[in-house]
């Protein structure tokens, strides 16, 4: 009755094996669910704004609310000139949000529980930050790493700032990945308790209701985490973009 809680994160090949320049580029369940996520997001917004009315329908108002939600997030974190990056932040937020929620459906694969996906998104975000910073400030972007301080402490702070900038690469990707991994593993572990107790005999069988209730609560918590992690990823993206746009945080 041993169930491996990590089995749900395994990547299987769907269809024929494909090789390109020495890399395995076969279509996997990972790619399938990424396609589903992109299709769902596109469908949601295409249907939501296809026939706009003055008094919005439920779907249309959901699309409008999510637009305003992301726009307000960017405005409060990166100022009005951060709105140039609205499509970028919006796509990242909804890709992560939909893949987190799709992963909560039993049997579905969680795209964001793979470190390579979250790491690629992080590289995209921080790459954008660096490119935007150098494009806007030129070599002056490096002043981001030099805080205002007396000369005898500044050299130490520069080292700390550089390390903290580089560690964002790890923290931003691992945060999302670990949250998804931990939540789904926990659900699976409680599910294995239910199966073990159910198979244990007539006396222990009613006890299986306890881990089942626990699955319910953990599932509810996971819904919160699924939203919160997408939100945090998007907010941190805005904060990093704000630093690239206004070097030492003088927006408003």
């Amino acid at each position: 009755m041993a169930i491996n809680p990590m089995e749900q994160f395994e990547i299987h090949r769907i269809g024929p094996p494909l090789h390109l320049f020495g890399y395995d580029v076969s279509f996997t369940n990972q790619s399938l669910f990424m396609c589903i996520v992109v299709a769902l997001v596109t469908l949601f917004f295409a249907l939501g704004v296809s026939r706009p009315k003055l008094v919005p329908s439920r779907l249309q108002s959901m699309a409008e609310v999510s637009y305003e939600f992301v726009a307000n997030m960017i405005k409060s974190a990166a100022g009005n000139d951060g709105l140039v990056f609205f499509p970028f932040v919006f796509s990242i937020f909804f890709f992560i949000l939909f893949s987190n929620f799709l992963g909560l459906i039993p049997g579905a694969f969680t795209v964001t529980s793979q470190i390579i996906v979250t790491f690629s998104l992080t590289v995209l975000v921080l790459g954008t930050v660096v490119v935007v910073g150098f494009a806007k400030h030129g070599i002056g972007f490096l002043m981001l790493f030099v805080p205002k301080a007396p000369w005898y402490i500044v050299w130490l702070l520069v080292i700390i700032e550089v390390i903290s900038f580089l560690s964002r690469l790890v923290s931003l990707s691992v945060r999302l990945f670990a949250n998804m991994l931990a939540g789904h593993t926990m659900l699976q572990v409680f599910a294995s308790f239910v199966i073990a107790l159910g198979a244990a005999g007539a006396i222990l069988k009613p006890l299986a209701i306890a881990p089942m209730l626990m699955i319910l609560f953990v599932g509810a918590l996971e819904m919160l985490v699924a939203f919160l992690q997408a939100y945090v990823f998007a907010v941190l993206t805005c904060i990093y973009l704000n630093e690239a746009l206004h070097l030492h945080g003088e927006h408003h």
Partner: protein
Amino acid sequence: MELQAAKMIGAGLACIALAGAGNGIGIVFGNYLSGALRNPAAASSQTTNLLLGFALCEATGLYGLVIALIILFT
């Protein structure tokens, strides 16, 4: 077999990270509540910071989990 046992102990020790995460989440929500009860009008404007703080705290505990997994599966 000895290495396997040491790995198990190491993974268990990595769970100590949860103590810090628990402390942090308690501090985040506790301080938010005490601030919000003193000045309820300003409370709703700070929910962004509350959620951000909660998520950042929670993530530190999960780094422990990642380290435990790395220890167990390498």
